[in-house]
């Protein structure tokens, strides 16, 4: 059976039930059955609303609310139902007192995003709410309660706040990044698009380029001096592939002042691609660190190190560094050369340096390290020096000049630098120099002597020739019948005398020629010519002799128009000499063959006779001075023994060669080979 209460209170969800079952009689409202219509109506409105609503009834503000409000009230529900508002929400009592006062006077109140601190769940909670308060008017027209619509906006506010904080942080971050960019000690620029248009460049970057205007320009327009340095190409590559490019200590040339002076700097840099929303490369961050100073100072250090190494590697002085334990921890190549030890040898042996290079006394007896004054001095005295005999790795001694200088660091002796010079070499050098001076003097003396000899020979032959010339003239005068007719017998005797005189002249000539060719001052006057002319000249010279002996010459020129570079007079005499020998050592009526032919490098002239030939044992000696060979014609042949010696010398002076092929009884062949002109 429905009660009155059931009738007047709508269902109202959970709160509807709670309100109906609440003991209102113990409150100022009294039992529901006694509620005025205005109260019942208001309760129904509240219960039927889906927005959080609360009603504060009477001057005590007794609270009645709906399900939505109960959620808002948190742990305060359900105690809150039927309680007085000031007691129900003690933490905001002041606020509610004011609400009660104002609204019960018939006015409305409205708050948007009102901030309050509530203890809904026994902990302070900052909440925001939109609050609308309006008076409930009773049947008599007087305000009897307050109807409140409570919409909590905390979540929105917090979201808004968070958003603002995030925005502020973002802004701060941006500004931090910007100042980072602008104040960075690195050069930073952002280029966009495939043409790399400058969108941004930090002051450092601009300063480096003489503060020229680059923004909005392509890299190629803005920094034309990069042409040929690979910069454009690297940017193109990064843009194309999306792969960052890293450069380390890359030399870059650019105009730093804007006046055309090209400066070279060294940079570590990164080209980092940037991407658009579609993840496509749309630009490149160029980040460069000027490391010029570091690179240059390092280069200087390296240069000095190289210089030091060059000096120590190339000095003739041996340098050793000895540590405080007397172990050698450095040797230059000169020290290795002098001691005979490689640094590897010395490092492998754990012994004081003395035991390696100074371990024997000059008499060969052992030299204990404890007795060595040098060993003791080098780490105790700032400097020592002297001369001594050290021992090479192979055990041999060498005289040495040494000097040492102690290395002190922070007041502590850490080792010694030792310089050694092998005096053997110096002594050798001095001896060598003395020898050289002596040789030079001897040579000069010899040159003077040689000159004197040449002059003597020249004069002597002149003096010897003069009386023989007179003899020749006077005998000829008679022979030629300037003094009247002579008999055949007389002519024959005179001819013998004439021939003997001629032989004397010939000997003088040969001696003189030999002396001249042995002299260092002998000079040829060479010219290019056909070798056939030399042969023809010799045949002409020998014509009368050949005629007397009824000998014939067969000349075959198989060399065509090849040329040689020779002294014509001397070389003609060479062939005259050879032809004369061929004639002398052949029997009357025999044939002599001269053949001219060529090979790749040489022209060969062969003079071949069918004469007595030369014994094998004699062949070796025929080009020596004063050699006369015994054979069956020797007695009838006159000669000085100088002809072939002179021939060979002349041929040699022409970078040529002469050889002889001979068989006793069959004949000889002399072959002169001369280089092609």
């Amino acid at each position, binding site marked *: 059976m429905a009660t009155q209460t059931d009738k007047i209170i709508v269902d109202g969800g959970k709160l509807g039930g709670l309100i109906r079952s609440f003991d209102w009689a113990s409150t100022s409202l009294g039992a529901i059955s006694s509620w005025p219509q205005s109260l019942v109506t208001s309760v129904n409105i509240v219960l039927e609303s889906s927005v959080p609503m609360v009603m504060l009834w009477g001057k005590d503000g007794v609270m009645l609310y709906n399900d939505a409000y109960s959620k808002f009230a948190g742990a305060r529900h359900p105690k809150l139902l039927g309680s007085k508002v000031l007691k129900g929400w003690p933490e905001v009592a002041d606020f509610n007192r004011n609400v009660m006062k104002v609204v019960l006077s018939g006015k409305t109140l409205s708050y948007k995003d009102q901030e309050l601190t509530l203890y809904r769940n026994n902990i302070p909670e900052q909440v925001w709410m939109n609050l609308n308060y309006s008076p409930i008017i009773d049947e008599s027209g007087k305000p009897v309660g307050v109807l409140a619509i409570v919409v909590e906006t905390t979540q929105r506010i917090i979201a808004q706040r968070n958003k603002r904080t995030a925005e502020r942080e973002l802004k701060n971050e941006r500004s931090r990044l910007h100042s980072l960019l602008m104040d960075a000690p690195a050069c930073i620029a952002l280029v966009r698009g495939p043409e790399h248009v400058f969108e941004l460049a930090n002051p450092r970057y601009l300063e480096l380029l003489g503060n020229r205007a680059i923004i909005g320009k392509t890299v190629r327009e803005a920094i034309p001096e990069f042409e040929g340095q690979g910069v454009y190409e690297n940017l193109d590559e990064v843009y194309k592939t999306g792969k960052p490019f890293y450069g380390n200590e890359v030399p870059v040339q650019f105009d730093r002042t804007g006046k055309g002076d090209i400066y070279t700097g060294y940079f570590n840099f990164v080209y980092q691609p940037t991407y658009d929303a579609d993840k496509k490369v749309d630009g490149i961050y160029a980040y460069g660190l000027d490391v010029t100073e570091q690179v240059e100072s390092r280069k200087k250090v390296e240069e000095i190190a190289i210089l030091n190494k060059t000096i120590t590697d190339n000095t003739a002085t041996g340098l050793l560094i000895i540590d405080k334990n007397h172990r050698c921890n450095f040797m230059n190549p000169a020290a290795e050369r002098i001691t005979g030890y490689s640094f590897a040898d010395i490092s492998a042996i754990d012994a004081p340096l003395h035991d390696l290079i100074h371990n024997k006394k000059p008499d060969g007896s052992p030299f204990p390290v404890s007795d060595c004054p040098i060993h003791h001095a080098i780490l105790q005295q700032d400097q020592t020096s002297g001369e001594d005999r050290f021992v090479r790795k192979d055990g041999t001694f060498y005289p040495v000049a040494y000097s040492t200088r102690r290395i002190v660091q922070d007041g502590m002796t850490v080792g010694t630098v030792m310089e050694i010079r092998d005096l053997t070499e110096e002594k050798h050098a001095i001896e060598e120099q003395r020898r050289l001076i002596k040789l030079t003097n001897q040579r000069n003396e010899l040159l003077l002597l040689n000159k004197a000899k040449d002059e003597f020979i*020249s004069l002597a032959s*002149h003096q010897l*020739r003069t009386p023989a010339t007179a003899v*020749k003239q006077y005998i000829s005068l008679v022979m*030629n019948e300037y003094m009247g007719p002579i008999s055949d017998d007389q002519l024959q005797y005179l001819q013998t005398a004439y021939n003997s005189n001629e032989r004397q002249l010939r000997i003088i000539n040969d001696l003189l020629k030999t002396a001249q060719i042995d002299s260092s001052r002998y000079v040829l006057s060479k010219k290019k010519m056909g070798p056939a002319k030399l042969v023809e000249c010799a045949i002409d010279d020998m014509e009368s002799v050949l005629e007397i002996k009824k000998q014939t010459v067969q000349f075959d020129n198989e060399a065509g128009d090849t040329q040689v570079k020779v002294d014509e007079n001397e070389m003609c005499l060479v062939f005259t000499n050879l032809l004369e020998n061929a004639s002398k050592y052949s029997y009357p009526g025999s044939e002599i063959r001269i053949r001219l032919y060529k090979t790749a490098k040489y022209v060969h002239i062969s003079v071949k006779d069918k004469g007595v030939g030369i014994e094998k044992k004699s062949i070796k000696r025929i080009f020596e001075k004063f050699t006369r060979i015994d054979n069956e014609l020797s007695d009838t042949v006159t000669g000085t023994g100088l002809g072939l010696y002179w021939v060979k010398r002349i041929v040699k002076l022409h970078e040529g060669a002469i050889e002889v092929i001979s068989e006793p009884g069959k004949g000889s062949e002399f072959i002169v080979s001369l280089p092609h002109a």
Partner: protein
Amino acid sequence: MRKLPCVLVIEDERLLQDVYKLVLLANGYEVHTASNGEEGLMAIKKAQPEVVLLDIFMPVMDGKEFLKNIDTADYPDTTFIVFSNLSDRATETEMRGLGADKFVLKSSMDPQGLVQMVQAALSEKQ
């Protein structure tokens, strides 16, 4: 009337001077003799010879000095034959440099050779 071709013999060795003179005279030359360079300088002016036979080693003034003391260009019609028993190339080069036209080894010439040499010199000048 055509003058006989004239030869000046500058030769200190009397034996040789005599024989040259004898042979050349016998072969139809006018012959002047001088015993050293100094005499030669006087004789060449007087005789204006077609051929000069000039020895090198001579007392007072030798053949080199003789050539140094005259300008052979002043004697365009004269052939200067250095006729000596010195045969080294350095001397030949030096004498040619001083204006000698020919350099002949004295010991290589018998009287006939001498006459042929003088004749050749004359015909070359013509």
